[in-house]
């Protein structure tokens, strides 16, 4: 099977959908000639032409609003945010316009807003943010974050085919750093479904995005110490796979919630509430969060490293919890 990078897998997914369905089109800043700041849409202009690969002025709000209008008319826009940090500039159009239309009057808004997020590349406070929780807390949206190339392709395709607005986070650290087997053919990874990346017995680590790799790294290390981590990759944050989370927690009896995003109000809280309510009787230890602290993402490498969760921090937490 072909081995693709994460960025190639996303490109292939969008590409296949554009081949399959003439209503799919790409819109954003520098996505046409230039092929996008991270080259996700590279080559699409040549293949699909100006009507379907559209460069825009620097107007995030208008881009999102226009995508919504086009979606209402039967198109399926795939919007690129040059960095997910700038989604804040189109925020109102997402949470107030796109997210609520179907509930309010029944019309469909099939659109995807995608772009690079996350830290680890010394991008500083504005090219490193993980801001998925704004949208996880907005009813009407779906939120997706793949961690593998295989999932990236399957999830982008499922997102494009979904009838609802989907916010699709791509972790920029993974774009060219990971590779895996990605079938050439058409397949979907369903939204709302988690994946168990590694079976384990002692502690369930629930995570998503680039942190899946951190969890796997820690799990491999800890196995040598006799601590067995199960690693659950959420893949979708809204709706998220409650059953998978609960199953893993019930099986292991202990749980660590891991994310790169900052702590207060982060996804770990949501998961803790689910677990505290629905798996309380199965818990053999406290619910532990391993997350970034509540600060902006600092720039200098030593600061950024201190800010980000990593395998060491996870292992320290896991050792303590295992001993509980």
């Amino acid at each position: 099977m072909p081995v693709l990078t994460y960025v190639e897998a996303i490109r292939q997914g969008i590409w296949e959908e554009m081949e399959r369905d003439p209503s799919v089109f790409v819109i954003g800043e520098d996505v046409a000639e230039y092929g996008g700041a991270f080259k996700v849409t590279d080559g699409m202009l040549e293949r699909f032409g100006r009507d379907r690969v559209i460069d825009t002025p620097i107007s995030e709000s208008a881009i999102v609003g226009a995508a919504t209008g086009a979606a209402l008319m039967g198109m399926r826009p795939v919007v690129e945010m040059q960095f997910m940090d700038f989604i804040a500039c189109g925020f109102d159009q997402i949470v107030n316009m796109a997210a609520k239309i179907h509930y309010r009057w029944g019309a469909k808004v099939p659109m995807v807003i995608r772009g690079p997020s996350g830290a680890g590349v010394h991008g500083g406070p504005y090219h490193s943010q993980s801001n998925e929780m704004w949208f996880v807390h907005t009813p009407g949206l779906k939120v997706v974050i793949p961690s593998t190339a295989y999932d990236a392709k399957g999830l982008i395709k499922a997102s494009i085919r979904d009838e609802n607005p989907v916010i699709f986070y791509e972790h920029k650290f993974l774009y060219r750093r990971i590779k895996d087997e990605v079938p050439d053919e058409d397949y979907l990874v369903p939204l709302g479904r988690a994946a168990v990346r590694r079976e384990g017995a002692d502690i369930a680590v629930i995570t998503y995005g680039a942190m899946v790799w951190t969890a796997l790294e820690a799990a491999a290390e800890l196995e040598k110490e006799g601590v067995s981590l199960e690693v659950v990759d959420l893949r979708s944050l809204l709706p998220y796979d409650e059953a998978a989370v609960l199953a893993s927690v019930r099986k292991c009896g202990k749980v660590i919630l891991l994310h790169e995003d900052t702590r207060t109000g982060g996804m770990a809280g949501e998961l803790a509430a689910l677990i505290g309510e629905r798996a309380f009787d199965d818990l053999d230890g406290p619910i532990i969060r391993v997350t970034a602290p509540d600060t902006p993402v600092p720039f200098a490498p030593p600061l950024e490293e201190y800010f980000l969760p990593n395998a060491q921090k996870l292992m320290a937490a896991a050792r303590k919890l295992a001993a509980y």
Partner: protein
Amino acid sequence: MLYYLKLTRESEFRIEKALYRQGKIVGGVYVGRGQEAIGVGSAIQLSEGDVVLPSHRDFSSFLIRGIPLKDIFCNWMARANGPTRGRENTLHIGNLERGLIPIISPLGDTCPVACGVALAMKQQKKKNVALVHFGEGTSSRGDVHEAMNLAAVMKLAVIFICNNNAYAYSTSTEKQYAIEDLAVRGAAYGMPGVKVDGNDVLAVYQTVAKAIARSRKGDGPSFIECKTFRMTGHSAHDAAEYVPEKLIKRWEARDPILRLEKYLLARQIISRKDIRELDETIKKEVDEAVAFAEASPFPKGPEALEGVYCGPDCWWERPGKES
């Protein structure tokens, strides 16, 4: 046109002056008294496949695009068989078959949406247009700017219609912008920008007609500033003491309905009797619609949970829910 003008006036009058005071309207009340010519003069000339995105005061656009009056009253009164089934208030009524995309409260948000509608029309090789209404206060929002610029760059078939009614809530125009006419902003984006007497339905009609023709030819967007006046408070609970009495007097004399009547009478296109009869018909129509709405049920609580997502067994498409 006279029919729609009067039907709008009477419907809104009933909402603002009768139903609201009787506590039968749920939530806030915004009406477009005095500004009816803008909606009527523009919507009336749209073709099938065109889309209008009305402002919060453009009652007439809904009538002209064929939303039954009783549906509109049901919406104002939060009834289950209104078009939003009680989810939404006032004129937040959407209907894609009839080419209607409703405003949302964050003002200006429909301007970018109108661009997307026109972009889809272009991609689908249709000769249709999108017509978006907003107030002069709304023109200060960034979304309006981004949308006008985008429409000009992409040559989209969007007609931006600004109803300049001299106030945004309590804020008068000199606190809203520092120019004489907003119409000059057309030039700032590379599209025609014209101003027109918004209380003259025929002038509105002609100005919009030109813009539409231009857009259908593929020549892109236009910006039209309709000068008018808000002949009520911002909403039914606002006494508008900040509006000088003499301004109201001055604009009363320019009432768009009386003007059209005078015009039609002078040319003997209609008679006083025709007008009286028309008034009677309209009164009856509104009576019936109100009665229908009043007799309609409220939605049931648990419905609140339905339809957040569009999925395979979409709640909106389940039978037995339509009015």
